[in-house]
């Protein structure tokens, strides 16, 4: 059996398989303990033939030129979260797995796939791609966290955030992640390097969901001038803070 991979069996019908690769035997042991209720070791050899969906790096390691790699969670080539210690990485993994577990094909709900930044029960969504704003120090200092997810659900005027996958947090000595079921969407941020028109920005943001509810929500925010266009990371950061009503840290 492959020594660095766990396979989780998720979904209401337990018919979804997710491979998670760990960066060390210690990390693997942590993952196995944390997600013990979801493991399917019988499928490890089969999934080992495919690239894993997620890679978890829980240890900080020295690299060349005196730099260190920080704990992080990777989905393919994208780093979803990077942190000074393992806990936020594990929380993010649980959040993503929770979304995979909850989501059903054709469940009739309006799922939207944009990056989410939250402060309290308020959230903004943006299509600015990774690695921009990953582990952004200024946002963190202002009390803004990126909510790592596998899709958010449009729920009336709010967004529903799927719960993290239930896990054995006590067994690994970590507090479970905080979770807000519903958050208020305060605005949208479009990554725009070509000075698109308002209609074009709406079209761009609308493509991140196949639901008319999302289109209506995005159009409503656009009408209320709560859609900001930004061309770079700095602009995105400023827009996140402005839309969430947070003060920029000095």
């Amino acid at each position, binding site marked *: 059996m492959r020594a660095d991979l766990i396979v989780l069996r998720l979904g209401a019908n337990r018919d979804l*398989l997710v491979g998670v690769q760990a960066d060390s035997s210690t990390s693997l042991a942590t993952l196995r303990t944390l997600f013990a209720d979801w493991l399917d070791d019988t499928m490890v050899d089969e999934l080992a033939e495919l690239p894993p969906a997620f890679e978890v790096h829980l240890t900080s390691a020295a690299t060349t030129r005196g730099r260190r790699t920080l704990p992080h969670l990777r989905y393919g080539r994208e780093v979803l979260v990077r942190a000074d210690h393992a806990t936020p990485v594990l929380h993010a993994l649980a959040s993503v797995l929770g979304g995979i577990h909850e989501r059903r094909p054709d469940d009739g709900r309006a799922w939207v796939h944009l990056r989410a930044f939250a402060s309290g029960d308020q959230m903004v969504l943006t299509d600015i791609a990774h690695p921009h704003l990953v582990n952004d120090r200024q946002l963190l200092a202002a009390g803004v966290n990126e909510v790592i997810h596998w899709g958010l659900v449009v729920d009336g005027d709010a967004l529903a955030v799927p719960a993290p996958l239930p896990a054995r947090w006590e067994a690994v000595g970590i507090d479970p992640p905080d979770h807000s079921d519903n958050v208020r969407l305060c605005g949208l941020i479009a990554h725009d390097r070509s000075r698109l*028109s308002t*209609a074009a920005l709406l079209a761009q943001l609308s493509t991140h969901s196949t639901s*008319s509810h999302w289109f209506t929500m995005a159009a409503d925010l656009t009408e209320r001038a709560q859609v900001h266009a930004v061309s770079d990371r700095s602009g995105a950061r400023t827009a996140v803070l402005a839309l969430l009503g947070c003060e920029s840290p000095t």
Partner: protein
Amino acid sequence: MAHSSFTPDSRPLAIDDTETALFEGEAVVFREATKSIHRLNASAAAVWVCCDGETTVADMIAELAEVFATVEHETERVVLEALEQLADLDLLVRPNPNPIATVTQVDDTASDGSRIIGCPPDT
């Protein structure tokens, strides 16, 4: 009238399952059936708004020539182009609508039939 599938007496009708947002003269149209988004420029948006099944093409041309302060033969060209574009996008009711092409994404499947959540393709 230039060669077109629309005649002066045609009364183009927008299909039902759409949501439209108008900003600064442009339109963004969401179509429920195909989960598609279409962005229309100012002239196409103006034509789209007129596709109510009652307004004739001739009326559209006259009205939009006044709105855009253009001569009628130029407006005719713009209106007909917009209508053909809307028809090509299947946004107008047709007597014999084209079948909607669908793309089916096939997930990896395990030997027991379970769906495998895979690694995203490189972009």
